Each structure stands twice: as structure tokens, then as C-alpha cells.
């Protein structure tokens, strides 16, 4: 029989972390600090709006690009929060989570052989999506000494004449790193000069701390016309299960993404779209409350890490800390496995997000303080034990 599969999909390696996660889920009393989604439930007024839309029988397709009202609210929101201006009729596409937007953007923007530059460690889907779009992924290894920010030189070193797209994943999962205005201005210079496009994944844009508000690269001069901004409701409004994201960008790109979306997806779920309108209209205070809670946890964890002398740069975004465990002479995966076996706490090895994550662990603080406290008591005990054994 012929091989039913194409060579492209077979080249994509399944996530090696699967086995580890299986062990965790079978371990009954294990504490996991592994998930990448908010522990909060979607605020009730948003859920209630979803329910109301069902009661009203709003159970049909919406237009391919998404509800007119939702697209208008997205534009209001982007203007209000990040000083970005888009035309709601021609420059917005509502997608099934940010993930679909990433996939669609890559599929309409690259030709076979085009290079897509992906800074790592970063979210796991960029590379496979690039491969499925027939692009050639080119990784940039972000460095702890730069607080895992992307520098001008690193970008320059990765560029060839085939380079077309830079993925910009900030605030970053898994490191919690952010790019501030000056960082963006520096790389923007290179991007303009080398005529690149940017897919800027800003899904964590609402979760920045220490008065470091998120800046979108699309706001930097000359960048709007070469940037697709991807955002969504999952992290900011605790709406992961609703699968609501969007892309905004130049009309010529959004138009083609809408075409890809039309034929693959038709439209984003109608109930979720109605709920999303409510989130944008009246959800600002909820975001404020959640951000304040994340920030308290972040600082709590940073204090604990510094007390146990585990090096970690100060993250200003997302809901992760990314401490370095190189002193123990183990790989991230070995550390994760041993920690799970001995103390029953699951952390995600940095290598799950690319080779650049070797020597680091991703710790999510989308957990209650009580849980974090218990897990960090165990981490402290574990770390001290490892040091004593040396």
C-alpha cells in the first residue's frame, strides 16, 4: 500500500514532552505548574452574554471575517490600549484563537523556500506552521544575558536573501520576556532595511507588569505596513476554551487570510464572538484584577527564587518565570523528571520550547498562591538536596 502521508508532516517531530505529561496526569497527588492558561474562569458577565446569545437563537454563521460589531470593538480596543489604528471593515480578521491566525498568516505570506525567522525559546506552533506552509524555519537562540530579548545583532546574523518573515513572540511564552519600545525600535530599523515582514504574536499583551505597558511593533514608525498583529481573548480575559483570536494588518494580507479562513474554517464560533464583544466593551476591570493577582504571584515567586538562590532574570510579561538550573549539571528534562519523581511537582523543561531553552525550566504562575507556595517549598527542598549531594 502507498504511504498515505506526505513528507512534510512526517518531518514534524511530535512533542517529546507528551510522555512526561502522561506521567504527571497519572500521578494523583502531583502538583503541576505546567499549564499555559489562566486559572481564572471567564468573568461571569462575559459568559452570561454567551448564554444570552444562545437564548436569542444567535446560532448561525457570521460573516467570514467575524461580526461587524466585534471587529469594530477590536479596533476601538487596539486604539485605546496600544495606540494602533485599523479599519474594522478591511483590516481585521476574527480567528479561532491566535493559533489559527498564526497558521493563516504564514500560509498566505510565504512561498516554498522562503525563510521564516523564529526566535526561541518560544511557543511551540510557529515552527510546525512554518514547515506546513512550505517555509524554511530559521531559529534565533535568545540569550538569558539579554533577558531573552531579541537584539539587532541576533536578527542581522539570521537574515539571508531568502528571509521574508520574522515571528515576534513578545510578551514571551515561556520566558516572560518583553520587548520595550527601544528594543523594538532597534530591530525595526533592520526589518525595514532588509524588507522583512513581521508576524507579531501579542497574545499576552495585557499581561505586563511593573508599569511596563506593552508596546506593539506595529506602532513603531514604518512598521504598520509590514506587520500582522495577532492577539486574542484567551490569556487576557481567561477565555481559552472559547477559541477567540484575531489578526489585524495591511488590507492586502488580511484579505488573503480571510480567504484562507473562509475555506478552511468558514467563521469563528458565533457564541464566542458575542461573548468577545462583551469582553471588549466591559472587561477592562476584570483584566485589571487578574493582572494584579498575577503580579503578586510573580513577585512572590521571584522572591522565593532569590531566597533559594536560583538565578532567574526578572520577567515583565505573560505568567511564567524561567529560572536557570545549569548549576546542577542536568538537562532540563532530567531536572523535570527527577523533581517530579522526588517531590511530585511538574515543571515544563525549557527545551519543550526549543533547544535554546536548555538549562531552564518554565514555571507557570497561573495557579493559586497556596499551590505556588507548596510547590516552591518542595522546590527549595529539592534544590538544597541537590546542592548538598554535590
Amino acid at each position, binding site marked *: 500500500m502507498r504511504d498515505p502521508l506526505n513528507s512534510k508532516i512526517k518531518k514534524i517531530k511530535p*512533542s517529546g*514532552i507528551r510522555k512526561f*505529561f502522561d506521567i*504527571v*496526569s497519572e500521578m494523583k497527588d502531583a502538583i*503541576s505548574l*505546567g*499549564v*499555559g*492558561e489562566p*486559572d481564572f474562569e471567564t468573568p461571569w458577565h462575559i459568559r452570561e452574554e454567551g448564554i444570552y446569545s444562545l437564548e436569542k437563537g444567535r446560532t448561525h454563521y457570521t460573516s467570514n471575517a467575524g461580526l461587524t460589531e466585534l471587529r469594530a470593538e477590536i479596533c476601538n480596543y487596539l486604539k485605546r490600549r496600544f495606540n494602533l489604528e485599523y479599519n474594522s471593515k478591511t483590516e481585521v480578521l476574527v480567528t479561532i484563537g491566535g493559533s489559527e491566525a498564526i497558521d493563516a498568516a504564514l500560509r498566505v505570506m510565504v512561498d516554498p523556500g522562503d525563510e521564516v525567522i523564529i526566535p526561541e525559546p518560544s*511557543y*511551540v506552533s510557529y515552527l510546525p506552521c512554518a514547515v506546513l506552509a512550505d517555509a524554511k524555519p530559521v531559529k534565533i537562540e535568545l540569550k538569558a544575558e539579554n533577558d531573552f530579548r531579541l537584539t539587532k545583532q541576533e536578527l542581522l546574523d539570521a537574515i539571508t536573501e531568502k528571509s521574508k518573515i520574522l515571528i515576534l513572540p513578545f510578551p514571551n*511564552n515561556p520566558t516572560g520576556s518583553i520587548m520595550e519600545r527601544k528594543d523594538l525600535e532597534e530591530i525595526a530599523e533592520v526589518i525595514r532595511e532588509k524588507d522583512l515582514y513581521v508576524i507579531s504574536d501579542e497574545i499576552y499583551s495585557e499581561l505586563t507588569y511593573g508599569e511596563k505597558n506593552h508596546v506593539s511593533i506595529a506602532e513603531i514608525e514604518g512598521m504598520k505596513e509590514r506587520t500582522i498583529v495577532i492577539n486574542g481573548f484567551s490569556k487576557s480575559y481567561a477565555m*481559552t476554551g472559547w477559541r477567540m483570536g484575531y489578526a489585524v494588518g495591511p488590507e492586502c494580507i488580511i484579505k488573503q487570510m480571510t480567504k484562507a479562513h473562509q475555506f478552511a474554517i468558514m467563521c469563528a464560533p458565533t457564541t464566542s464572538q458575542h461573548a468577545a464583544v462583551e469582553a471588549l466593551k466591559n472587561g477592562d476591570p476584570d483584566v485589571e484584577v487578574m493582572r*494584579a493577582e498575577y503580579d*503578586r*504571584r510573580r*513577585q*512572590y515567586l521571584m*522572591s*522565593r527564587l532569590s531566597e533559594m538562590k536560583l538565578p532567574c532574570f526578572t520577567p515583565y510579561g505573560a505568567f511564567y518565570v524561567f529560572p536557570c538550573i545549569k548549576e546542577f549539571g542536568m538537562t532540563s528534562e532530567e531536572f523535570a523528571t527527577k523533581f517530579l519523581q522526588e517531590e511530585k511537582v*511538574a515543571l*515544563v523543561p525549557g527545551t*519543550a520550547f526549543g533547544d535554546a531553552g536548555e538549562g531552564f525550566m518554565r514555571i507557570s504562575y497561573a495557579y493559586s*498562591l497556596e499551590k505556588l*507556595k507548596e510547590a516552591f517549598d518542595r522546590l527549595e527542598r529539592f534544590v538544597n538536596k541537590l546542592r548538598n549531594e554535590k
Partner: protein
Amino acid sequence: MKDKILQAIDKNSKITALDLARMFNTTEEEVAKCIAEMEADKIICGYPTLINWEKAGNEVVTALIEVKVTPQRGLGFDKIAERIYRFEEVTSVYLMSGGFDLTVIIEGKSMREVANFVSAKLAPMEAVLSCATHFVLKKYKEQGIALAEEVKDDERILILA
């Protein structure tokens, strides 16, 4: 700092000074000092525990009483409110706008006890013109906390997101 502490302990007064210090990048002593000051200033008025007595197997009857009173010259409603809130059975007293003056919430072991309080203590007060007593049948939510809600397991699954 004080405001940050209040925000943090609003829903959970069990957080220790050490943990608060860790959250706000300061010392345990500094946090303890702030809290002591706020206690002295009566910004923090107490640390009661929210107990579902019904679930604990204790009989508790709660009643909400709408009270109309005559305000006193120079003292307004404060004097009569104080005479009422000093009773141990009384858990809350609010001055209201609208059709009556004071909302008095009282707790007792039985309906009879509550009825006794109203007829023997509250209603006969000189300044009290009338009382309308409403018994609570079921408590759903108190102080922002849903009482009946089950503790939910973490339903989030481990996927790389």
C-alpha cells in the same frame, strides 16, 4: 504599600506578613508595621471567618429587619443605631435610604430566639416606630463568596500552550 496589602488580603486574610513581603518586594517588618497601623486606624476592622454554619451542623437563624425610627435632635440616627448594634445578636446595622431607616440583621439559634429579641428588645425601644422582620430561608452568597459551590478540581489539562 498599604493599598497593595489591602488588595491582597481582601479575599484572604490568612496570607502571612512574610508572604506579603515577598509579593511586594519589602521586608516582613515593614508589612507588619503597615498592618498594625491600619488596625489601629480601624481601616482593618477585624478578621472574621466566613463559616457555613448549616453545613457544620449548627442551627442558625438569620433575619433581616426593616426598622423605622425617630431620629433624635442633634444625634440623627447614630444614637439609636448604636443602641441597636450593641446587642450581641445583631450582626449588621445599616442606615438606609427609602421606605425605612435601618436594616438590622440578626442571628439567633432559633426562630423563637429571634422573635423574642424583636418583641422584647427592639420593638419596645422608644425611638423605634415599626419593625418588619424577614427570615432568611437560604444563603447563596456572602461577602463575595458563593456558599454552596463545590470545590472544583483543576480541570485544565497539560498541553503545551
